């Protein structure tokens, strides 16, 4: 009689082993959830701390996104105005025109004669245009309106152009750009500092939460070791417990931030057109990115906080 080939039994063994692995994964997730529910007060404290940290991180994200968008829009709009002196000569005007047109920072530019500027003022003044009746258009200066490639280009462009004779003044939205860039820096620094401190507190609280959970179950863990549980079988539920804390904290922070941002958006956009450079970004366009940032940070902090305790207290 022929004996059975070995292949089917090997296959069935492999199948059994993969089923066992699936069962182990299922158990691991179940234990992770159980761990989270086991100490509700500690879990609540952990979620709250993570949530607070993520609120700061999220607010920082929303501010920097908006600041970046405004700076970009303002930077590329035509804020740079070059005024020439009265009595500037034709060759000087030509030299400046050439310098502006050849400058790599310039996206486009227009040149205005005194008459152009006079007409522009009349148009701007509307009903009060009569004020200009006694003014000789030739008394007004020549000017250039320049659109730059970006907000960063202003410094080098200004440095290059202001050396030309015949230039009286170079005006741009100094205040706005300065405010946004300096505020961004301050907010970035404050956000990083606050986020960093809250991150440390979160790590500390989560690692303590997991430590308490481990110590409360030390007997169970020692039995698990004797029965043949692997290090990862014992450790992963605790890491998941930390990650759940992070996920829950992230969703709560996300909801609160979107709610608050919606209010701020409605208030700020009352007198501002959506097409304006000053318009805030709509919450819909920010929600996805914000959730991703919060989830990623929350899960990382949660799992890392757990890992600190798990490495220290669980060893097969």
């Amino acid at each position, binding site marked *: 009689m022929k004996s059975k080939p070995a292949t089917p039994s090997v296959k069935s063994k492999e199948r059994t082993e993969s*089923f*066992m*692995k699936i*069962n*182990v994964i299922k*158990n691991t997730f179940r234990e992770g959830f159980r761990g989270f529910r086991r100490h509700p007060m500690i879990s609540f404290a952990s979620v709250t701390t993570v949530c607070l940290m993520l609120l700061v991180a999220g607010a920082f994200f929303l501010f920097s996104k908006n600041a970046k968008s405004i700076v970009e829009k303002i930077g590329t709009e035509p804020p740079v105005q070059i005024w020439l002196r009265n009595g500037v000569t034709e060759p000087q005007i030509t030299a400046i025109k050439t310098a502006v047109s050849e400058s790599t920072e310039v996206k486009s530019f227009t040149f205005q004669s005194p008459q152009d500027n006079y007409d522009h003022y009349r148009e701007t003044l509307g009903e009060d245009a009569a004020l200009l009746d006694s003014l000789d258009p030739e008394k007004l200066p020549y000017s250039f309106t320049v659109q730059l490639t970006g907000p960063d280009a202003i410094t080098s462009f200004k440095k290059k152009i202001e050396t030309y004779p015949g230039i009286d003044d170079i005006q741009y939205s100094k205040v706005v750009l300065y405010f946004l860039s300096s505020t961004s820096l301050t907010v970035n620094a404050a956000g990083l500092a606050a986020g960093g401190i809250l991150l440390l507190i979160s790590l500390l609280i989560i690692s303590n939460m997991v430590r308490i959970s481990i110590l409360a179950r030390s*007997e*169970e863990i*020692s*039995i*698990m*070791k*004797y*029965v*043949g*549980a*692997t*290090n990862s*079988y014992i450790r992963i539920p605790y890491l998941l417990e930390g990650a759940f804390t992070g996920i829950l904290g992230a969703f709560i922070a996300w909801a609160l931030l979107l709610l608050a941002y919606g209010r701020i958006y409605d208030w700020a956009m009352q007198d501002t057109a959506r097409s304006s450079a000053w318009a805030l970004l709509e919450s819909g366009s920010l929600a996805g990115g914000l959730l991703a940032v919060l989830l990623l940070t929350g899960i990382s902090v949660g799992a890392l906080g757990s890992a600190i305790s798990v490495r220290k207290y669980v060893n*097969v």
Partner: protein
Amino acid sequence: MVDFHNVSMAYGRKAALALKNVSFHVNVGEFVFIIGASGSGKSTLVKLLTCEEEALEGEIVLGGIPLRRIKRRAVPYIRRNIGMVFQDFRLIESKTVFENVAFAMEIVGASRRQIMRQVPIVLSTVGLRSKADVRPSELSGGEQQRVAIARAIVNNPKLLLADEPTGNLDPETSEQIMALLREINRGGTTVIVCTHDRDLVDKMKQRVIEIQEGEVIRDEEQAGYAFCEI
């Protein structure tokens, strides 16, 4: 099944030897008592077998595997071949009798179906089928030890290692526990019992390995607790 070859062991570099040149061999399906006073080295021997500690010198072979050569990550898989029974039972109070036994199967990745089939059989073997839903605190000492034995054998280990299993039990219950261990042994499982229960060892008349101050001073078949000189 178990081979100790000139094994010495100390807890720390400068500490005195807890085991000195210990050598013995236990065959598959044997029932062996390891006896000795407290501090003689019985527990050290158990720790070496469960890979909690490493031998300073010598070689320990368990089921054909030299323990010195195995990696740390392989230790859990070695332990799955050993069923452990302790003096203090070590049951999880928050779990029922059924769950305590099922727990050992969950860890090795058994399915719910396998657990539902196997646990009642094992509980019947130890005579606790009717107490499956009871918590350990509601059981007597003897019953708790039976649950611990059920947990130890539920994954069909090749070796059952009992460290003072009757230390917390009255003589009558101790006898019942020993009878249960003997029954499991008859089913083919190798059983090693560390004890200093003189009466039980005398009654059971099994192989006895006696340890004194870390040294094997007697290895005798069908023996009693005390050495008999003819």
